[in-house]
């Protein structure tokens, strides 16, 4: 998902306070910024919301790669609006993280120096226009499965930003599927692009949900705190079950020869992605890992004079105002 492998922090607070805190969460209360919270809850949330925000910002890049090459004026406008939304979502999430006592600049620096991660999916390249379809259809489709339940997460500012994000995201997956339909029903070259995009994005999309819960030692605490709402395997299964019929509708083939309907469990059996590839990507060895951080670093460095100048101007204006009074 947009937040993967979030290590949840053990916490050594007063057991009485902890119990009261857990009781509030169990009762469905929202935790707000000034409320008491266990140090581990705060740290885990900063890590999770921060990684989610970074994923939105880095996620601008693979799609931004095609804005200048969008094949019609309308497609250009739609794609630009979508990638702009991702900047907005990053902004909302950074603001939510800031309520926990970390600044946006600190989070940015942690992304740039590798202390914080972003979702593995955005370390993959977008090579044809069909990838704009595949990213919307598969990547946004996977993201929505995680984000809809997060609207009910226990931390108020996080939940509220997810409400806004889900509202805005509703068109993202649809525009992706719309591109896929055009491509899958288009010329031979377009069909080839569509199948190629599915081939390249299928397994990285499955990786978005993170490794199996059986191997994830952190899920349990996060689920108790209601900052993780569903298990990884559960969401992955739901995603596959939803996506296979859509691929059939498009006349495309899921690149998994073992894929088969399992009547007993009422879902598909499917092949797991190559998890060693996933861990390589997380370590910064994704196909575009270097380029992605390089692009963010350049924007950060090149923008420094602008951010400084605006503050300097504001200070001068304020001084002039005070002098005039």
């Amino acid at each position, binding site marked *: 998902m947009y937040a993967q492998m979030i290590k949840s922090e053990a916490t050594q607070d007063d057991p009485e306070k902890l119990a009261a805190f857990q009781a509030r969460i169990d009762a469905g209360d929202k935790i*707000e910024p*000034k*409320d*008491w919270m266990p140090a581990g809850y705060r740290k885990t949330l900063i890590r999770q919301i921060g990684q989610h925000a970074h994923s939105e910002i880095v996620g601008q890049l693979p799609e931004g790669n095609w804005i200048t090459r969008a094949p019609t004026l309308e497609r250009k406008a739609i794609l630009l*609006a979508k990638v*702009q*939304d991702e900047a*907005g979502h990053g*902004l*909302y999430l950074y*603001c939510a993280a*800031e309520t926990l006592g970390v*600044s*946006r*600049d600190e989070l940015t620096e942690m992304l740039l120096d590798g202390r914080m991660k972003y979702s593995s999916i955005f370390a993959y390249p977008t090579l044809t226009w069909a990838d704009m379809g595949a990213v919307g259809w598969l990547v946004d489709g996977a993201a929505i499965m995680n984000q809809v339940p997060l609207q009910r997460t226990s931390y108020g500012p996080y939940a509220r*930003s997810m409400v*806004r994000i889900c509202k*805005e995201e509703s068109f993202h997956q649809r525009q992706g599927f719309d591109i896929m339909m055009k491509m899958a029903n288009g010329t031979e070259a377009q069909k080839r692009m569509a199948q190629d995009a599915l081939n390249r994005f299928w397994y990285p999309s499955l990786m978005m949900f993170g490794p199996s819960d059986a191997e994830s030692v952190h899920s349990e605490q996060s689920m108790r705190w209601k900052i993780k709402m569903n298990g990884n395997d559960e969401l992955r299964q739901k995603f596959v079950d939803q996506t296979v019929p859509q691929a059939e509708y498009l006349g495309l083939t899921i690149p998994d020869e073992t894929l088969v309907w399992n009547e007993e469990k009422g879902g598909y059996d499917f092949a797991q992605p190559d998890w060693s590839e996933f861990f390589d990507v997380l370590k910064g060895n994704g196909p575009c890992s270097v380029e992605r951080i390089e692009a963010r670093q350049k924007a950060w460095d090149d923008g420094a004079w602008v*951010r*400084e100048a*605006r*503050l*300097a*101007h*504001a200070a001068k*204006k*304020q001084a002039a105002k005070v002098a005039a009074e």
Partner: protein
Amino acid sequence: MKQEWPLWEVFIRGQHGLSHRHVGSLHASDAEHAIQNARDVYTRRKEGVSIWVVPAADITASSPDDKGSLYDPADDKVYRHPTFFDIPDDVGAM
């Protein structure tokens, strides 16, 4: 100079005449910049007709420890909530 643009809280009044509502936050160098950023960030879908921005640092919030004294007294004033009153179905929508 290593300093961030200050944080602002954004309130927007929509087209239907309801009060300004808190919609989120953003960073901006001064009030004018904050208004422009709010327009660009929070009214991309024509959500609002009037924008307020307030420096987040200037907001005084009630302390969570006061929660009891602030809100509990209202707990027994259930008549403030419309569902307190049983209105016969025959009366129609109210």
